[in-house]
């Protein structure tokens, strides 16, 4: 009986959360929306595992909606590039939903919890659509659904601090401009090729082998639009307020997955479609993405040092980390793209864990968590604090954590490309990361105030520790993440060399 559903698994992973979100939107109950979300996301994980099994057999799934053949119909594509991200996405969303319940109840009116989880599932479904879609206009629709759901959830943080409204509004305006730029680019591409399907686009673009101005204009518009959405420096300004004023539970999801999925599509567009203009691509990568990545790494880290508010600090560190990822992607070879994917997967876990721990502190402290307010928390709440410590060490890139694996692969990729300046800069910025993280550690363990340890809520620290333990496991046994990333790079780079 389940077989009928399993055939439609690629569609169901997106449609299921979207459908359920409509059902739970007006439930006034405190707990039912959460239970239904958990069940939905368990099914979601099950479907993702099923997709993994299918992929390991066939290597490629193209799902045609309504049996309309591409390039006429919309299709989803699952292959080696996105299956790793899909799996991580599914697992992380489930864990963070477990974590979110108590946090949401503390931060928003319990009567709103139906609406909150409805938006939560809407964001999950549409972000998953970004991972799977093979149609450039369909991507725009998912981009906007996820943005609108995120904005509404950020605005729910207004109960804590009214600045959340301003953060949401800025995200709305900047995000909508980015998305509209992307649509202009799609318009140019469609005008020249008459297709929206990514595979077909490659074939159609090949006929303009000398390159046409309209195509380059379209490509530039699309890339700039996506850069705004992925918060690549210098168009990142919406990100720090959005991360820091959103309800803590949602910050976790936003920081861990929202920009990562868009970065993934950005890379896919670069290396799968625009690759047929190698000169344009290398121009973009060398003179736009590469310098911007270096600036992002440096400036993001330096600004993070001067932040007093912990959530803002983490948000600026995210900008630097996105810089690491785009730096890796600008290298144009297998090792670079693979290390970029390694960092996408690892950083999703690290930042997720950090935001989860800080979110719990915000609940315990009942105010915004600043450096001062963390005094003595290391003794007061040892379980969560220790998780925060491990995630932070991983962010810096110490051995035995998955952050180390990321840095190792990034250094290797940079070294094979002989980019010694970037190596130096990445090393310096890792050292500076020690500075801002040490400020947190100092307040938590080395201030004069000593507290007796207090009871912590197992429903909250268990999910945090699941993420933390996975960070350690992937630091020691890194094969799964490396394998998935190499697989992604294999698929993307094979097109480049032909």
């Amino acid at each position, binding site marked *: 009986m389940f077989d009928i559903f399993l055939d439609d698994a690629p569609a169901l992973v997106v449609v299921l959360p979207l459908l359920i979100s409509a059902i739970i939107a007006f439930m006034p109950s405190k707990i039912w929306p959460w239970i239904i979300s958990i069940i939905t996301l368990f099914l979601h994980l099950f479907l993702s595992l099923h997709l993994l099994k299918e992929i390991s057999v066939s290597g490629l799934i193209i799902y045609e909606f309504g049996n309309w053949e591409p390039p006429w119909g919309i299709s989803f594509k699952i292959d080696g590039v996105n299956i790793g991200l899909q799996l991580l996405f599914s697992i992380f969303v489930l864990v963070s939903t477990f974590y979110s319940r108590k946090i949401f109840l503390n931060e928003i009116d319990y009567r709103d919890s139906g609406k909150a989880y409805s938006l939560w599932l809407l964001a999950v479904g549409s972000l998953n659509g970004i991972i799977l879609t093979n149609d450039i*206009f369909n991507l*725009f*629709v998912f981009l*906007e659904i996820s943005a*609108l759901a995120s*904005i*509404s959830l950020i*605005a729910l943080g*207004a109960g804590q601090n*009214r*600045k959340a*409204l*301003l953060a*949401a*509004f800025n995200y*709305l*305006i900047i995000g*909508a*401009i980015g998305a*509209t730029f992307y*649509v*202009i680019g799609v*318009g140019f591409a*469609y*005008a020249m090729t008459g297709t*929206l399907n990514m595979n077909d686009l490659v074939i159609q673009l090949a006929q303009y082998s000398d390159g046409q101005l309209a195509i380059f204009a379209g490509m530039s518009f699309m890339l700039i639009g996506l850069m705004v959405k992925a918060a690549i420096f210098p168009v990142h300004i919406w990100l720090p307020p959005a991360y820091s004023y959103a309800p803590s539970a949602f910050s976790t999801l936003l920081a861990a997955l929202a920009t990562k999925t868009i970065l993934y599509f950005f890379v896919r567009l670069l290396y799968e479609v625009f690759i047929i203009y190698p000169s344009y691509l290398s121009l973009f990568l060398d003179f736009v993405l590469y310098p911007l990545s270096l600036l992002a790494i440096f400036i993001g880290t330096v600004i993070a040092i001067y932040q007093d508010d912990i959530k803002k600090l983490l948000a600026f560190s995210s900008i630097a980390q996105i810089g690491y990822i785009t730096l890796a992607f600008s290298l144009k070879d297998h090792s670079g793209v693979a290390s970029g994917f390694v960092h996408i997967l690892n950083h999703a876990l690290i930042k997720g864990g950090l935001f989860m721990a800080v979110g719990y502190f915000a609940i315990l402290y009942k105010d915004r968590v600043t450096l001062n307010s963390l005094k003595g928390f290391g003794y007061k709440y040892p379980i969560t604090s220790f998780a925060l410590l491990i995630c932070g060490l991983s962010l810096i890139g110490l051995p035995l954590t998955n952050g180390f694996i990321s840095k190792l692969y990034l250094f290797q990729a940079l070294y094979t490309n002989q980019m010694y300046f970037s190596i130096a800069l990445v090393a310096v910025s890792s050292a500076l990361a020690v500075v801002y993280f040490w400020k947190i550690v100092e307040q938590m363990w080395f201030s004069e105030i000593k507290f007796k340890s207090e009871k912590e809520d197992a429903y909250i620290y268990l999910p945090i520790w699941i993420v933390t333990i996975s960070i350690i496991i992937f630091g020691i046994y890194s094969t799964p993440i490396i394998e998935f990333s190499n697989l992604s790079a294999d698929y993307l780079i094979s097109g480049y060399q032909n």
Partner: protein
Amino acid sequence: MVGGLFIIITSQNYLKKVVGLAIFQTAVFVFFVSLAKVLDGTAPILTKMANAYSNPLPHVLILTAIVVGVATSALGLALVLQIYKNYETIEEKEIESLELKSDK
């Protein structure tokens, strides 16, 4: 299109920014619809009279984009309303000075 973008960047009033965004998006919709025109083409309805049809696909895409645009504007206006309730102003400068005061 540029007019809409200009309004978003220069105006200090949040409501005007939402309107600017709507103008900006509408301009892009018109651009899409203009792509669909085929010389001598008629509406894509099967008749004996016509020998060329306009491309209906951009219209369909824009129908989707219009819905997205409406949702964006609606959410933007709702946020402006909430900002007004919380700050009693929707001028960017006044809100900034209010926030500076509350930080001190």
